[in-house]
């Protein structure tokens, strides 16, 4: 067999994995700081909000950068998919970006401003709206995008379906759970206790949403039903929902036991399992229902320049990111503020 042919077939897969990893990093990392924002209205007072911001302050910008990498990576590796997905989800993406503008500047503005309630609302609203829009894009993508002659051929509101709304709310719940369990990790005393109480409620909500999506998609999309519910797939893929249930059960116990790191890690595990489920449902399509990763890939040999660079740089990026997380490890004390 021609070795070049193997590389040609393998490269889109490698790129899809890299972008998938970048998106996963984004979802988990920006997930918890968007989650903190969505918890803002439920904080006791501004001192508590100061502590919440302080717990994510050193990380938020780096976290958000994974969103640029995900989009940029899509442009590099799957330009055909990029040029379809972006216009297809024009309105939710634009609104997400505007929401992130508000969310991002609040980190700096709120610490200088005197009208804290205004910026508290901006931070909460921006975080919630961004999460909601991301859910809409996710749901819309799973349901499928209309393509003609290699370009987006649908309308401006194709993404606005009840299912996409369900996904939107699911993402909101999921990120908020990440935020609550992050607070269990980074704060102590009364604040961590209340975060735990919220985490329990949110865990239930997230599981409900995950179940709803898992039931709805095979019922409405034949391809997904075929993927999951036929033999022998049913046997091979059954571990995914089973492990999810086990993790959820363990997490409930850990939250009750007020463990510090375990609840957050369990939430991350739930996210990764849900993500895996979505990947299993959609593979090999990058733009369901018609565009596969092989169709959408940039000419493989032309991607080597970026691939080699990525494989060298990504570990370095992860290195100093990990350094930052380690440097600011530990609890955020009472009386702490942003800067």
């Amino acid at each position, binding site marked *: 067999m021609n070795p070049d042919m193997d590389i040609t077939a393998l490269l889109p897969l490698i790129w899809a994995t890299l972008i998938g990893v970048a998106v996963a990093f984004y979802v988990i990392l920006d997930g918890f700081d968007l989650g903190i924002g969505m918890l803002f209205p439920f904080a006791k007072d501004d001192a508590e909000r100061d*502590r919440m911001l*302080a*717990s994510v*302050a*050193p*990380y938020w*910008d*780096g976290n958000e950068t994974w969103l*640029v*990498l995900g*989009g*940029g990576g*899509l*442009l*590099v590796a799957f*330009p055909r998919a*990029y*040029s*379809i997905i*972006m*216009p297809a989800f*024009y309105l939710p*993406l*634009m609104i997400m970006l*505007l929401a*992130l*503008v*508000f969310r*991002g*500047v609040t980190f*700096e*503005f709120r610490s*200088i*401003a005197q009208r804290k309630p205004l910026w508290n609302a901006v931070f909460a609203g921006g975080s919630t709206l961004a999460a909601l829009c991301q859910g809409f894009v996710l749901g819309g993508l799973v349901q499928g995008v209309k393509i003609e002659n290699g*370009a*987006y*051929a649908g309308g*401006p509101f194709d993404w606005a379906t009840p299912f996409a709304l369900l996904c939107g709310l699911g993402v909101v719940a999921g990120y908020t759970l990440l935020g609550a369990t992050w607070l269990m990790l980074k704060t102590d005393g009364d604040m961590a206790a209340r975060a735990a109480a919220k985490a329990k409620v949110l865990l239930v909500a997230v599981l409900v949403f995950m179940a709803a999506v898992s039931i709805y998609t095979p019922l409405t999309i034949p391809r997904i039903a075929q993927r999951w519910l036929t033999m022998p797939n049913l046997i091979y893929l059954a571990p995914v929902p089973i492990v999810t249930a086990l993790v959820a059960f363990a997490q409930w116990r850990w939250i009750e036991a007020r463990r510090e790191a375990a609840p957050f890690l369990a939430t991350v595990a739930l996210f990764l399992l849900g993500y895996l489920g979505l990947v299993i449902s959609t593979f090999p399509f990058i733009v369901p229902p018609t565009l596969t990763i092989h169709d959408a890939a*940039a*000419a493989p040999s032309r991607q080597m*320049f*970026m691939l080699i660079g*990525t494989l060298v*740089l*990504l570990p370095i*990026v992860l290195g*100093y*990111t990990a*350094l*930052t997380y380690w*440097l*600011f490890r530990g*609890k*955020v*004390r*009472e*009386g*702490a*503020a942003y*800067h």
Partner: protein
Amino acid sequence: MHLDPVLLARLQFAFTVSFHIIFPTFTIGIAIYLATLEVLWGWTGVERYKRLAAFWTKIFAVSFAMGVVSGLVLSYQFGTNWSRFSATVGNVVGPLIGYEVLTAFFLEASFLSVLLFGGERVPRWLHVFSGVMVAFGTTLSAFWILSANSWMQTPAGYTMEDGVAYPADWWAIIFNPSFPYRLAHMLNASLLTGGFVGIAVGARYLLANRHTEEARTMLRMAVGLTAILAPLQLVIGDLHAENTLKYQPTKIAAMEAHWDGSKPAPFELFAWPDENTQSNLYSISIPHIASLLVTRQWDGLFPGLQDVPPLDRPPLPNVFFGFRIMVAIGLYMIAAAWFGAWLWWRGRLFETRWYLNLVAQTWWVGFVAVIAGWVVTESGRQPWIVEGILRTADAVSPVPAASIATTLILFILVYGVVFSFGIYFINRLIARGIQEMQLPERTPHLAAGHPTFET
């Protein structure tokens, strides 16, 4: 009412990119200044440098945040509004942006965190190193994005297959013909912009008789810097124009409102280019000077607008007036910097109140010049989005005009509000002044008793 999606998409990108460019321009210059202050402090231990660094770091952080969020918008706009651009040249431009993210964005974000929040938990060398890394990151970011933008102006190292551009030679792509000039011009512009803000802040404090020691240091550093860089910018700009003449002669013709390529061109101090008569109305000009500047010959000839069909000409008012505004500010900068340097030499810099007042009021000149210059270079390449390869009108996404009109209005509202607040808060930071107390602790991991800023 018929809305033109191409025009709307162009307006939206022009609006969002003009806002965005304000912040990286400022932050690149301030980052380098900050790194310098950090190194000076690390080396000499003189506390004044540390206080200045802490002061500017806070201002830097506000500007940086606005740069990040507005930059995110642009990176997605390549796809949302310019999907055919992405599909056509994405194989070349994509990796350049990808490298910008991987080498610059993560670097800046991580090390800025150390700078802002490291405080006592970070050894001095790491603090200084972080300052240097942030400056390096912002410069690296400029490198990649300017390479990508320069490739749009002077594409090189590519092949076309079925209407799609593919990379053939990455060195030629990255170091395309106009790149070195545009990078130098922009980095220098950044330093000049930050420099004039530094002069203004120093002058403002001196006039108010506050922080006199730090203000004098700032003024000395900034005046010294701008006195060297402002004339240098003129030289770089001239070399840049020479390169542009070779690769984008129509842009030069538009900059000079030069219609007839068969005659030498006068320098228009003021004119109103009229596309109907293909001449310049109300013209106040100096004969031959444009020929002299462009070709270095009194009777030199260079291509005129009439050498290309009207559909291939850029929008004249943008390019012509943008250029004049930029040059006028550039000349002001040289005059202001040199006069300041002369006053410094004569020992009268800190006492000449009319001068201090003038420079305090004109803190904004760098920003206006940068936007004007970008209008020249980007409007000047129209109707091409990638010179010779793809026209702007053929590059838009299949998004209905109504959607674009909606988002354009939203952007105008949101940016208007957010960035007004930004300027307001930076102004408040300057009004609060340089903290005299022992280094304000910024680490969020302190016990209670953390000093907070009072108004």
